[in-house]
Structure formats: structure tokens, C-alpha cells
């Protein structure tokens, strides 16, 4: 696999070059990147749950859950929240377009979807922020 193999994908004249991409294209690239991240996450999630089947199951599971409730892990959970919300909201937008709804105003629909996503992310932030900063933010 040579770098030049990807010229059609990443070259200056390719449609993926950042300044060549339009709104819908960015949305599409974002959907794929978050999708791949979520596949990786699902396998991690199953690995964590499987600790209950290993060794001293109950204790191993509880130890791991105690570790993953540390602020740093909750902060990573917040990143997960953002990734999931983007993928879900943008995915619904794709479903709407597949049903023929809103295609003519696709750019507007994208920004409405992102506004909805932003509200959901803020909701998620309010729900878990006290776990990231248990002492409160000065």
C-alpha cells in the first residue's frame, strides 16, 4: 500500500481535500469517522462486561466499574456522548432524505440537525459534569 494509492482520496484535487468539501460531504465524512469509532467502542464495551466472566467475576467487574467511574473516564464517556449524538442525529437526517423529506433544503436540514445535536450534548453535559469535576469547578 503506497501513499500515492490514496491520491484519488486525499490529493489536493480530490473531492476529499478539505476546501473542496461541501456541507453534505463533511456530514458524510463525519458519519463514517464516528461510525468506525462506535464499532471500536462496542467491542471495548463487550470486553469490559466480560470481566464478570473471568477469574473472580463479581469482584473483577466491580473493580473495573469503580475505575471507569473516575473523572478521566467520565470525560471520555462525554466524548462518547458527543460521538453518539452526532451519529444518531445525522443518521436520522439521512433516513429523512431517503424517505424524500427535506432534500431540497438539505443544507438547512443539516444545520437544524446540528442545533438539535448541540442541545442534546448540552443536556448530556449537565447530566454528567458533576462526575467529571466532583469537587466543582472553581
Amino acid at each position, binding site marked *: *500500500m503506497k501513499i500515492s*494509492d490514496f491520491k*484519488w*482520496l486525499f490529493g489536493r484535487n*480530490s*473531492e476529499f481535500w478539505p476546501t473542496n468539501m461541501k456541507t453534505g460531504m463533511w456530514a458524510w465524512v463525519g458519519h*463514517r469517522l464516528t*461510525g*468506525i469509532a*462506535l*464499532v471500536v467502542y*462496542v*467491542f471495548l464495551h*463487550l470486553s469490559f*462486561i*466480560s470481566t*464478570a*466472566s473471568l477469574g473472580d*467475576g*463479581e469482584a473483577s*467487574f*466491580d473493580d473495573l*466499574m*469503580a475505575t471507569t*467511574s473516575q473523572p478521566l473516564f467520565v470525560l471520555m464517556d462525554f466524548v462518547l456522548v458527543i460521538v*453518539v449524538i452526532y451519529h*444518531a442525529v445525522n*443518521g*436520522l437526517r439521512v*433516513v429523512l432524505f*431517503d424517505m424524500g423529506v427535506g432534500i431540497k433544503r438539505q443544507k438547512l436540514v443539516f444545520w437544524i440537525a446540528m442545533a438539535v445535536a448541540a442541545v442534546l450534548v448540552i443536556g448530556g453535559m449537565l447530566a454528567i459534569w458533576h*462526575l467529571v469535576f466532583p469537587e466543582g469547578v472553581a
Partner: protein
Amino acid sequence: MAEQKRIATSKVAGTWAWFFQRFSAVALIVLLGIHIYISHFSGVGEETGEEPLITFGEVSVRLDQLAYIVVDYLMLAMVLFHGLNGTRTVLFDFERFAKHQKAIDITLFVVGVATMIWGVVILFPFITSGG
């Protein structure tokens, strides 16, 4: 060149896969809402006091009830289909992978079935512990 690749992809991916990707997408939004509510907003902390910890004990109590088991396994099946079929779509946008469609289909199917079995088995300790 890239244009041709996208046309090739839409043929390769299939209408069946396209439909169930959408179906599982909507199902997952509902199931994920239930999953997050159950795991993080209902009853958590009743055993341990103020700490918002998920514990083996609490999960076991929930997984004593058939409804929770059904939700978890249904979600697992949906997420594996959606994730692996999505991976398939991404791979087929690369000419290098689109050439090996059959091998990739078989591999992803085997990975999906194996992971489903793995996912079903790892809940057994919670289900059989008697809450």
C-alpha cells in the same frame, strides 16, 4: 474515478442491507435511550449510597427479569448488524476492498455471529447469580 467507485458501491451494498441499516438505526436510537436510562438514571446507587457506580449486584437484580435480558440481547444483535454492515459499506468504497466482496461478506458475517455468541455468554454470570 471516484464517481465510478460510488456507483459501484451502491450496487454492491444491496437493497436488503440498505433497508435494515435504516431499520436498525431507528431501533438503536430507541434501544440506546432505554439502555442509558436503565443503566445510569434508574436505581443506580441504591446499593452503594451516593456513588453513581454500576455494580455486579445491581446489574444481576435487573437481569433477573426477562424484559431486561431481551432488551440487552436485542440491542446487541441490532448494534452488531448496524456496525458491521456499516463497516462493510465503508470498506466497499475502497476499490482495493470492493474487489474482495465475497471474502469480506463472509468474514464480517462470521465476526458478527461469533461476537453475538460472545455477547450472549458474557451476561450469563449476571443472569445466573440469582440477583
